[in-house]
């Protein structure tokens, strides 16, 4: 038996049907077709499926689709405005903060959450906030440099 769920996804009213056991990650990828949110582990240990749910950064693999009724969801697809990249996205490219890129959507979403919560993080604060986003390619160095640079630019912009 499928349940009807109404949400606001990246600013659009989106409705979907899902079984109660389907995770929000599965719904986003397989029912709605937004595959930017990635599955790396399915157990909340890698952060590749990070999304914003009613203002909270969560792993969409640890949320049931049915729980999203009436919720505001933001995914990586909602961060750039058409072809205008968000500063965080620009800085990730500038600093070569991605190699394979599979962890990048989750990191972009998490970095945005970090900088909205704490516009001036220390490098250590950034490293701990993002500890739940695993990256196996970069050793995190260039990711952290991109995050700190984006924070500077966003503060100047603000």
């Amino acid at each position, binding site marked *: 038996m499928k349940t009807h769920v109404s949400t606001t996804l990246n600013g659009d009213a989106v409705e979907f049907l899902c079984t109660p*056991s389907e995770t929000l990650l599965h719904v986003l*990828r*397989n029912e709605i*077709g*937004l*595959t*930017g*949110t*990635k*599955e*790396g*582990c*399915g*157990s909340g*240990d*890698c952060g*590749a499926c990070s999304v914003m749910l009613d203002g909270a950064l969560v792993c969409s693999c640890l949320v049931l689709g049915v729980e999203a009724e009436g919720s505001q969801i933001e*995914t*990586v*697809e909602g*961060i*750039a405005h058409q072809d205008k*990249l968000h500063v965080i*996205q620009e800085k*990730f*490219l*500038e*600093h*070569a903060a*991605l*190699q*394979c*890129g*599979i*962890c*990048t*959507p989750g990191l*972009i979403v998490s970095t945005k959450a970090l900088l909205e919560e704490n516009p001036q993080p220390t490098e*250590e604060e*950034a*490293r*701990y906030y*993002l*500890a739940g*986003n*695993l*990256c*196996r*390619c*970069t*050793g*995190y*160095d*260039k*990711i*952290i440099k991109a995050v700190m640079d984006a924070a500077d630019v966003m503060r100047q912009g603000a």
Partner: protein
Amino acid sequence: MSEAREYQHIGQRTIRPDGFDKVTGKANYGADLSLPGMIWGAILRSPHAHAKITALDVSQAEAHPDVFAVATYQDFPSVNAEALAAGTARKDLVDTAANVLADTKVLYHGHAIAAVAARTEAAAQAALDLITVAYDVMEPVLTIDAAIKDGAPVLHDDMMTQGLAEPASVASNIAARMELKKGDVAVGFADADVIVERAYETPTVHQGYIEPHATTVRFDDNGPSMIWCPTQGHFDVRARVAQLLNMELGQIKVVASEIGGGFGGKTTVYLEPVALILSKKSGRPVKMTMSREDVFRASGPASASQSTVKIGAKSDGTITAMQASLHYEAGAFKGSPMGPGCMTIFTPYDVENMYVEGFDVVVNKPKAAAYRAPGAPQAEFAAEMAVNELASKLGMDPIDLRLKNAAKEGTQTIYGPKLKTVGLEACLLAAQSSPHYQSALKDNAGRGLAAGFWFNIGGQSSVMIHLNPDGTGSIIEGSPDIGGSRASMQMMAAEVLGVAPATLNPIVADTEHVAYNQTTGGSRTTFATGMAVIEAAEDIIEQLKARAAELWNVTPEQVDYQNGIALNLSSDDHLSLAEICAKAEKTGGQITGRANINARGAGPSFAVHLCDIEVDPETGKTDVLRYTAIQDAGKAIHPSYVEGQFQGGAVQGIGWALNEEYVYSADGVMENAGFLDYRIPLASDLPEIETIIVEVPNSFHPFGVRGVGETGIVPPLAAVGTAVSEAIGLPVTSLPCSPPKLLKMIMEQG
């Protein structure tokens, strides 16, 4: 090529052409493709580490209304000699088949046995319960010691040790033995004033790519069947699947999706042939994905190893002899990287007398796959730990000791050839003068240094460059881009053609749209595919000159081409590349450059890493305080991605040394098959990873490029191991340096 050469684009930090899609979520990876009418496949995996399959009944599953197809080993057409067109030895192919779907035995916990395809993912999973398997459970062989001891259960009844002077007559778990020697170590040790000798071991670890294996396939009777998958080598996927399913290469098209990390682990097939069987039987597109648990239990880990190393030196630091015996776990089927381990272990040293023997040992664990410089980290961990111990015994600085014995141009390697120009001494000197090496060390901390070597390879690459009527163009290559190589291809083509990189769009084409390319591995892509890109661009220049000559009505010899402009030497006329393209219609049609090469002269890359680690004496907890990776890149095409390779390799090595390991229960079940308890490094675990790019050009490459992808994972194991040894004042011989292990050492010492 000349070192003083001025470059327009090479050495710049351009924005990667595939970047926009990757930061916006548009890029499509292995699990991102769905097709109309697609159904889902699922795999039944072995609950035992070692057992004979006495009965396998899939009839109930086949009968279930939700199930469209079931696959077992019986679905592989007998792999006969004719099927081996692409040249893989028969035994390897049989092993691959039996790894993809078990034949008469399951050889590790999680070994695939059968697969079903059903309407939904959940239905496919549920249908697995309808398959019944009867097992005759055998004692699992989980360590090298257990595998080689007398009376050990034998995994393969027909496996005779290869490489023995006297051919083996009874089956064993030792697949092969190899021996390399140079000079006479007995003489060398007799000359030595100081000798160190020690045994070392490293654990089974996983490449740990964040993207699980996944594939979507569509079998087609009347046209090529399509396989979409994340792989380092889509041409090799095509060859393997063709062999396993008795198909012609032309009957299969493999599309390399974007790939979410590979590190060597995505150079073979797991799901692809199974999915194609299910698609053929069901007549529908089939999608299969591995869970993270499946990835750990059933995809290529890197070999665990046991080594003994003996090194002798004169009191002035001259090393007189180096000797090692190396055992590598191959997993369930033969083929550990024991060979390259033996070949690399002592290559950083110019020493007269060397002896290495290696053993390839099968155990009841997943078949080992390549992992970044396969075999070298395990071997050079042992060698570099021993060299550092030798340095402290001699009271010598570890850099001075290495400089005294460093491999250089003309050094005779143990595997045969003499080295050409290499950058080891340059890396050691850079380390010596680095801010890190000059800095002071805090309490409870230790500092470790280690060198590393990897060959790098060349091989086959095919590239086409199409120019459009407005002068923009496409670079059609066939090397899956696992770390930003499209940016390098774009830069090299732009450099040769004298145009802006952004005007050339690099595309990793499927197996139908570009000729064969060897797998992205061996740090070959920027070197070899880059060479093909350069050659294709030079091919274009010849055509541009000819076209300009036509337009000016002169001979091509009267035309020169510099920085994107053709010059008429007999007048001051000039035409830009775009202007020539705009008139291509008049001068014989559009312009395509091509190159099909088998690149020679890959340049070895040496690295030196520095690591400071603090150990909490009351808990054994480690903290990496500072880390510097120094490596010879030959020439860095895109410095940011070169640094990224150094940093990524270093951090994978740090994980290998500190916390990563497969933990097995007595019955052979991996107990930490997830990112919660298989502990790869986190952002908060690490300091900045400082890098120093050394550039000693490779004389065989037009720009001097050496591969950089793999060497960076070789030094960290011993750099970290030595730092920990220094911090606790006890020799580390076994990785990982996990807190319980360290605290035990500290407390036993009192």
